[in-house]
């Protein structure tokens, strides 16, 4: 390579200038093939180790405090109703109660607001021990059909809820079939609280994932009724409860958005909840809860991130001190 360069430099000027342009890349190539590229060699000296830990601590502790503060500001009311909404005479056989459609499922609960809840107050339902992430359950859907409706017929992935009475089901699959169908109304004293139930699903799902001209068809007509029914006159893209439900939850305990109360709730307010306890979680021992929660930039109420950040931050500071002491005690 070297001797090649020397030869070139003695060549004619025109060639030399042409070569010179390429000498940069040639040099780089040479450095690469000879593994002589300019390099940075990091070395963990005591000073750099202590600095790393200090920086970690300084960055993490304030972040943790801010996150914890945000989480603390969130107010949450959780009301479990699945057990208490069963009439006393059915307490021993809840499944019979829930499966018997002749028994009225009305139920009324009252919760007290302890802290001021600034609008919007989000209404979630929470299911426990509900494996929406089960492999067969998750796969039992047809994204193509949700978009194209009856035009799309290769719905074998939807088994066992692919068709009933010889006709295809729209939306097919176990997920849609098991649509959650408890409903809630809220009143404060005599005043009915307005619940905004629009815009609870992802906009991307409404716009691109669920068809605007796909209407429910032959839905919940089989011998086994899974969950809620759908109004066949409303396109899927507007069936927001379905959209929310079909974003299957990652974990066996999950919340799903039901709606928003767009009024502040004040301390001492008694909120009466009238609900229809339709959904069968009794047969597998699942719990049902209703959650009213405000929100922050961090989402719902969860202290974990804040606590973890503060803990890691302080540990880093501690380790920085330990290494500082070690360094002073045993200098290099």
């Amino acid at each position, binding site marked *: 390579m070297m001797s090649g360069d020397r030869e070139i430099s003695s060549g004619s000027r025109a060639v030399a200038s042409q070569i010179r342009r390429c000498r940069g890349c040639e040099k780089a190539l040479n450095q690469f093939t000879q*593994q002589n590229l300019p*390099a*940075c*060699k990091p070395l963990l000296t005591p000073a750099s180790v202590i600095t790393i830990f200090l920086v970690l601590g300084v960055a993490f502790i304030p972040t943790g405090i801010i996150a914890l503060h945000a989480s603390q500001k969130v107010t949450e009311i959780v009301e479990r109703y699945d057990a208490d909404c069963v009439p006393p005479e059915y307490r021993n056989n809840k499944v019979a109660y829930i499966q018997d459609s002749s028994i009225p499922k009305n139920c009324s609960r009252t919760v007290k607001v302890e802290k001021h809840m600034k609008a919007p107050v989000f209404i979630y339902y929470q299911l426990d021990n509900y494996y929406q992430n089960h492999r067969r359950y*998750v796969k039992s859907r047809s994204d193509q059909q949700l978009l194209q409706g009856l035009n799309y017929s290769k719905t074998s992935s939807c088994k066992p809820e692919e068709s009933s009475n010889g006709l295809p089901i729209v939306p097919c699959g176990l997920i849609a079939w098991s649509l959650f169908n408890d409903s809630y109304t809220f009143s404060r004293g005599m005043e009915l609280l307005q619940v905004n139930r629009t815009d609870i699903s992802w906009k991307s799902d409404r716009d691109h994932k669920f068809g605007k001209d796909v209407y429910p068809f032959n839905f919940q007509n089989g011998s086994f009724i899974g969950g809620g029914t759908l109004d066949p006159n409303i396109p899927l893209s507007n069936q927001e409860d379905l959209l929310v439900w079909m*974003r299957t939850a*990652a974990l066996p305990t*999950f919340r799903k958005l039901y709606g928003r109360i767009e009024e502040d709730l004040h301390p001492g307010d008694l909120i009466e909840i009238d609900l229809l306890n339709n959904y069968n979680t009794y047969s597998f021992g699942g719990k049902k809860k209703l959650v009213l929660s405000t929100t922050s930039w961090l*989402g719902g109420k969860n202290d974990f991130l804040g606590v973890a950040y503060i803990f890691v931050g302080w540990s880093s500071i501690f380790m920085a001190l330990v290494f500082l002491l070690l360094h002073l005690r045993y200098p290099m």
Partner: protein
Amino acid sequence: MEFWKASVYGKDYGDMLDLEVSLLKSNGAGARKYKHKSEVAVDTELMKLLHRELTDAERVATHEFFLTLVVCNTVIPISLDDNGSIDYQGESPDEQALVAAAAAYGYTLCERTSGHIVVDVNGEKLRLDVLGLHEFDSVRKRMSVVIRFPNNSVKVLVKGADTSMFSVIAKNTDKADDLARETQKHLTDYSSIGLRTLVIAAKDLSKAELEQWQCRYENASTSLTDRAIKLRQTASIVESELSLVGATAIEDRLQEGVPETIESLRQAGIKVWVLTGDKQETAISIGLACKLLTSDMQMIVINGNSETNCRNLLLDAKAKYGVASTCAKRKNFELKSSADKNDLQPANYKTSSEVPQWESVKEEAEVNGPLALVIDGNSLVYILEKDLESELFDLATFCNVVLCCRVAPLQKAGIVDLIKSRTDDMTLAIGDGANDVSMIQMADVGIGICGQEGRQAVMASDFAMGQFRFLKRLLLVHGHWNYQRIAYLVLYNFYRNAVFVLMLFWYILCSAFSTTSALTDWSSVLYSVIYTSIPTVVVGVLDKDLNHRTLLEYPKLYGAGHRHEAYNLHLFWVTMLDTLWQSLVLFYIPLFTYNESTVDMWSLGSLWTIAVVILVNIHLAMDIQQWVSITQMAVWGSIFISYGCMLLLDSIPVFPNYWTIYHLAASPPYWLTIILITIIALLPRFLVKIVYQRFWPSDIQIAREAEILLERPVSLPKKRGGRST
């Protein structure tokens, strides 16, 4: 290769070599009209002898001597240009040297065809008909050519190794006996100063002999079966009752830097063995000359001519120096760490000395100095074919230096095999000749040197190099780098895949054991293919723990490989433990963050995907010893590429994970969780790493700190010496 000395008709020439080269040039101007590439210094006395009339026996012998040098070979002369300069091409550099030397004395080989040879003797062209040629083979160890002179007399000219020649020389007269004795003495002298010797003999063939031979020769050379054997038998007709003419001695020069290289290799803990085809005296003197053998060494010479003789010699040596037999010895050997055997080939390469580092480990009291084992090919025949192998193995591994002389090509392979089959050590064979091919192929690592002796060794080798001294760089620099890289890479790849699989595995605890994967199928596939593959390759190719200057300066750093420092079972399990921790962190932190929340499966899967990609890349980044621009691009680039792929995958409406990452990226907990995972997962590893580097640094770590902090490493051995004992 250079012609150095000659014994002609019982007289030794070559002591006054460098006397008057210039004088000679003017003197022999008429005679030497042919120029050669290499100038040969000429002995004036021998030159004078050549200018006498062809009358007395000595003069005739001298004539025959040079004629043999010119004729009895396979060298082809090639005229380079009009003014008569000639280049000699041949398969053996020895023969080229001999022909060149003869030319310097006025016997110039001008033309060679299969039928005749034209020799220019002091300006007079002599045309010789070649009646037959018996090529060199390793059984006869000689070569002969039958020629007819212009005056119709027929002669056979033979040259060969001393052992094979003296058995076919006529010893019927006192004169012949004296001559043989004198020549033998000269041969011993030559070989003891490290010269490679050949014996020259000639004979006039009578008409009857010629006819008998010609008949057999024709049959044999046209035979379709067993031609080699038949030719060998035919050769024995003419190669008998020869009259001794003289002997030649050629110096086989050491290549540049050979002793220094061997010194470094031995410091690096590599055992150097020399296997050569030269005779014992030559081999020993070469060994001494390059300090492979030193005067304080006790030499064990195994030089037997029968099986019992060899057995006795071996057992005596073992008893004398207290060599333990195999089982007990093994332990000791293992303790010393497995050292490479480095089998060096012929006299081209010689060895340097110094007490190998583990000498102090041995407890034998009787041994006063390092031991050298010298063993010759004859004994090896008995030892390798009979059940004495283990005895030899015990003795040889106990000795610091092993020198095998007069070794046939297959025996070289046999010795390599002896080590390979009995230990876990790696063997490396290096050689340049065709006779090294079997050894090169047998050894774990075979290296061929491209030299004058053709390309057969190179073609059989794993690595080819131009000079022996490059071996130092190959082993100490590239060997070290490659060991460190491959060892790290193996561990890292175990980690990289295990952490991913474990993370997927933990999720079954949350999905009713239904083996759901929260990650999209595409991400699972692309993880190994795109997200994490490029940095692995780049680091495996470009990372260097130490620069080559440091590695060349401190050969002992090579010992890291012997001690299995970078990859061993302990490290493997520690890595797996770390992997377990990291996978648990990966899994549980998002779980706690998104406990009782509205998070959907694909969002959590997306978070896990990017978290594991960032984690393994930062893990790698933490261990990179040398950052170059390509490494930077690969590590950070692959994180960006992963994001790019995920954005792409989440933009296709028919996937259930549609638009997930766009939603996630807008929420702060997503980012906070990723940072938290990375820090918590890597914290234990980081802590262990800095504590180890601070309080139990390895040799490499010390050298690295010295290299970086002091620019030029100084005074390392002190600290290191303490550790290695």
